[in-house]
């Protein structure tokens, strides 16, 4: 049986992976939008301002057996409710706004003249994206990834509603703490809380260290210069 720690990690890694690409993609597309920008922005950001239980409730309605999507998926024998996949989906929906917002901010701060210059120099749009835009917003992306990962580690409400709290399947650290407290097992709850704190803090420290190292590598003058 998978431990809550393992399920938490597994869910967070999977959700962060999806949010990472989806968030960058959405940020890049929304920045380019001329009309409906505000609407698109509001829809993507909504899960950030709603209580996670509300998000979970709507996910439950959306993918439940009585919904159109739920019925459609059932035809392929796919049931999402109270599965690990549901835990991942909950974590993605809740963390995506963080990835999207941070990345979008970085995209918008990028000097547009750099992109214009590349275009007039004949550089293809694809090359502009991979070689100019992405490298220059990497700190924004890194910050967004850190926020996304930590948010998914702490996810509780939406997961509880949509994926449930099934030990060995969907019980993550945060839901396990809840169960322990419910069962009056304060020792377990305490241990789980401490592990979660240690995990999150070490992740933050590690990511800060990585970004700091990158930063140093980038600004330190290379030997033999001038």
């Amino acid at each position, binding site marked *: 049986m998978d431990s809550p720690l393992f399920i938490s990690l597994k869910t967070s890694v999977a959700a962060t992976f999806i949010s990472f690409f989806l968030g960058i993609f959405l940020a890049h597309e929304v920045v380019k939008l001329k009309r409906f920008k505000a609407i698109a922005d509001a829809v993507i950001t909504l899960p950030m301002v709603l209580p996670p239980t509300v998000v979970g409730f709507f996910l439950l309605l959306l993918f439940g057996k009585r919904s159109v999507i739920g019925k459609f998926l059932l035809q392929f024998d796919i049931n999402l409710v109270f599965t690990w996949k549901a835990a991942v989906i909950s974590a993605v929906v809740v963390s995506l706004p963080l990835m999207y917002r941070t990345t979008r901010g970085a995209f918008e701060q990028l000097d547009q*003249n750099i992109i*214009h210059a590349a275009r*007039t120099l*004949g550089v*293809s749009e694809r090359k502009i994206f991979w070689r100019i835009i992405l490298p220059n917003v990497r700190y924004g992306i890194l910050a967004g990834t850190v926020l996304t990962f930590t948010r998914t580690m702490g996810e509780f409400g939406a997961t509880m509603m949509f994926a449930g709290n099934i030990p060995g399947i969907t019980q993550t650290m945060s839901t396990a703490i809840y169960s322990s407290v419910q069962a009056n097992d304060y020792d377990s709850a305490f241990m789980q809380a401490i592990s979660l704190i240690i995990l999150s803090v070490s992740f933050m420290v590690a990511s800060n260290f990585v970004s700091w190292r990158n930063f140093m590598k980038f600004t330190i003058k290379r030997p033999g210069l001038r």
Partner: protein
Amino acid sequence: MELYVRIRKKLRDFDLDVEFTARDGVFALLGASGCGKSITLKIIAGIETPDEGQVIFNGRTLFDSDKKINLPPQTRRVGYLFQNYALFPNMTVAENILFAMSGTDDEKNLKLKENLSRLKLDGLENSYPRELSGGQQQRVALSRILTSHAEFLLLDEPFSALDSFLKWQLELELLDVFKSYGNAAILVSHDRNEVFRLADRVAVLNAGKVDVLGTVHEIFSRPQTVAAAVLTGCKNISAARKISEDKLFAEDWQLTLTAKKIPDDLKFIGIHDHNLELRATAGENTFPFEIVRLVEDSSHFLLMVRVPNSDALPIRWQVNKKFRRADSELFLHIPAEKIILLNR
């Protein structure tokens, strides 16, 4: 080279509606900030799209709203020098220059070496843009353009971000680049002296329209319009009307002046502040004056003077520092041949 531009675009404050042809040499768009000159340049480069019009370079249509042609900036072959140089911050000088270059590695490296030494960038190839001075950054931006496939240069206020000493250095260097580049460039500027020094022909842009167009000497000596007169450095403008063949009345200054070849549709006159003269005796175009203000500049005095005891608009006057308020009365002389006659 021949670049034909006819564009129309609705902007927030006015409609941009310009038409001009730039041929060999440096063609300048001179205008106050927000007159539409930068956006004109962006439209030529394909960064902005006009509502309608044509942009044709050497017979090659870059944009034509009727024929629905709108080439992307990538295939227009223009070199755009941005005001802030727009170097790629994540790349070294060498990477910046090599990035858009085509050819084999050996060819590229040869071209890079040539350009680094030509633009005095030797030894800086591994530096990042943020480590360079403004002048060095501009030279990198230039060599990036010169090694690309660009066929003509667009310069957007190329010196506005530099201090005056550096500016002069770079101007001289840029003139050399023009020469070696076949002299095809469009310069956007609000600085009349810069335009005068660098450009051959100039179009004065005012609120989205070409006010006057001609050689630099034509426009600077006979600006014809108020906007052109102001942009070419004339500080004194007065509404005026023709009285007789050689007499006019300057309404704002409340002066009757003698001038040559006064057009019937005279609306305004102008006089440069350095063309006014100090006289000891009265005479033609010579008037007593009162000093409204006196400001000391680094090399001369700036006087604001007007007809004594009147509410006339003061005339700005640049006077030698030897000027002293004397006991005897002094007179302001407006040389007839220096009066700029404007019809709009």
